[in-house]
């Protein structure tokens, strides 16, 4: 009997919760890039605190999903970690921050520098041994990303490769898995978002960042726009949007969140001005 009573109380409680959420709050749905999502979640939390009547719902699934959901009206805003393509002119992009992609090695790897051609040769399988680029006499373990990820697209574009040219030994999904994999295998080379890489390297993970095309992998180079593999983090909308959505986008682009963006090791658009 007691149990039964408890269950009824819980059910009534839940009904109340659901109904008050539905009645009084405006929902903003965001889906897309796993790079942008953690940042937007934090900005969203801050926005919710300032505007209690708004509920921000963030789901990951990659830039392609971000675009697709906005096309099919499944979300209000798409998150993409790249520029809009030419065939995506129906959308409007709102840049909130910049990110770079950098090449990472295991911390104990004694290779200090790799030229553009070195990286290209390693990923296409023309160089298979670390000795050829000044390291130990061991096989190079190439870590590539799974199809559809924007990091992959950007990396391939910068080095002028097709995905079928890459001779990979391991394929990973998101940034974190890439970092874990490099930290776990001393002979590996991979590429991830520069913000995530700097964050993990400073927090003791066994990875190190190397220069890209002779430019040091650090945030100031992303900030001044000289870093070679750069990408914007964009919020994407289609057609007419509601007042709340516009307010949120303006908030995400404002100086009020540049501290959050810095914490995530991205570069705020406000810093460029």
């Amino acid at each position, binding site marked *: 009997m007691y149990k039964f009573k408890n269950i009824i109380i819980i059910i009534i409680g839940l009904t109340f919760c659901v109904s008050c959420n539905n009645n009084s709050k405006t929902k903003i749905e965001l889906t897309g890039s796993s790079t942008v999502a953690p940042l937007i979640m934090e900005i969203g939390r801050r926005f919710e605190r300032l505007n209690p009547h708004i509920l921000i719902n963030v789901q990951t699934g990659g830039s392609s999903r971000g675009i697709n959901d906005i096309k099919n009206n499944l979300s209000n805003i798409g998150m993409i970690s790249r520029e809009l393509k030419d065939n995506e002119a129906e959308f409007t992009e709102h840049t909130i921050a910049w990110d770079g992609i950098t090449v990472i090695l295991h911390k104990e790897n004694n290779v200090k520098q790799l030229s553009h051609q070195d990286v290209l040769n390693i990923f296409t399988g023309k160089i298979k041994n670390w000795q050829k680029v000044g390291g130990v006499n061991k096989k190079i373990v190439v870590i590539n990303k799974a*199809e559809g990820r924007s990091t992959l697209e950007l990396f391939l574009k910068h080095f002028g490769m097709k995905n079928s040219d890459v001779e990979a*030994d391991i*394929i990973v999904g998101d940034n974190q898995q890439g970092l874990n994999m490099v930290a*776990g*295998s001393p002979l590996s080379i991979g590429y991830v978002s520069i913000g995530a890489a700097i964050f993990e390297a400073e927090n003791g993970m066994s990875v190190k960042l190397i220069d890209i095309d002779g430019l040091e992998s650090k945030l100031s180079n992303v900030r001044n726009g000289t870093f070679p593999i750069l990408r914007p983090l964009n919020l994407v909308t289609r057609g007419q949007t509601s007042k709340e959505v516009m307010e949120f986008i303006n908030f995400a682009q404002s100086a009020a969140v540049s501290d959050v963006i810095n914490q995530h090791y991205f570069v705020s658009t406000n810093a460029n001005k």
Partner: protein
Amino acid sequence: MRTNKAVELMLKASAILVVMVLIFIFSFIFFKSLPFITDNQLSSLFVDDGWYPTTNNFNLFPIIVGSISIMVVPLLLSAPLGILLALFCRYYAPKSLAKVYIALIELLSGIPSVVYGLWGVLVLVPWIGQYAPPGASLLAGWIIIAIMILPLMVICVDNQLALVPKKWLSGAQALSITRWGTIWKIVLPSCISNISSGLILQTGRALGETMAVLMVCGNIVQIPTSMFDPIRTLTANIALEMSYATEMHVSVLFMSGLILLLMTSILMSLAYAFKRQPVE
């Protein structure tokens, strides 16, 4: 009588519900893969130039081989060990030790696969990598899967051993047959077919395992030529690419889900074929 009617109705309703769910899942996966089936020839799954779904190359064959290869060896590794451990617990170990042992094994079977995967990435893969880079490989997958299904195997065999009639055992004892003789000539022959059936069902788990395999196997689409080669399985393929896929890519991933379902069904019917009615 009235309560009986109500119970009967409830039982029937839940039986129908389960069948409906099954039919729904089958048809959902089938309709989702229909765009691929109508637009492409099924043979493209086996003859295309590699797996590059964004550029319409859909050769799934190496991934199917990967799924099968990740399943067979752990079965061969853990089945004999599982049978021996269960026999030990039931017929050799002191009662108190056996109880604790079975409890520990049940605990082991409750560890989420992602935990095994994490251990694999941080310990197993670097260790294999020292001898045969890249380390993420078929072998790493075998070891993880074998460790994962071993407790399930022990529990499954132990359950079958519990069904052996007590009077057979006391009869054997009265005839002063040795313990091993009893096991070898009486216990095992009576339940070996049900044990095999159970073991095959557990192998189905190896086929369906996703997270741990995704983390330690390297996910390269290739037919492995040695156990140090990285491979990709059907489940890992779906998990890696589904959330990033669009259009035909989604459809071919559902197609691979359909193939996975087919493979599981084959395993199930195999297990069913082995199964015998319990002995009197």
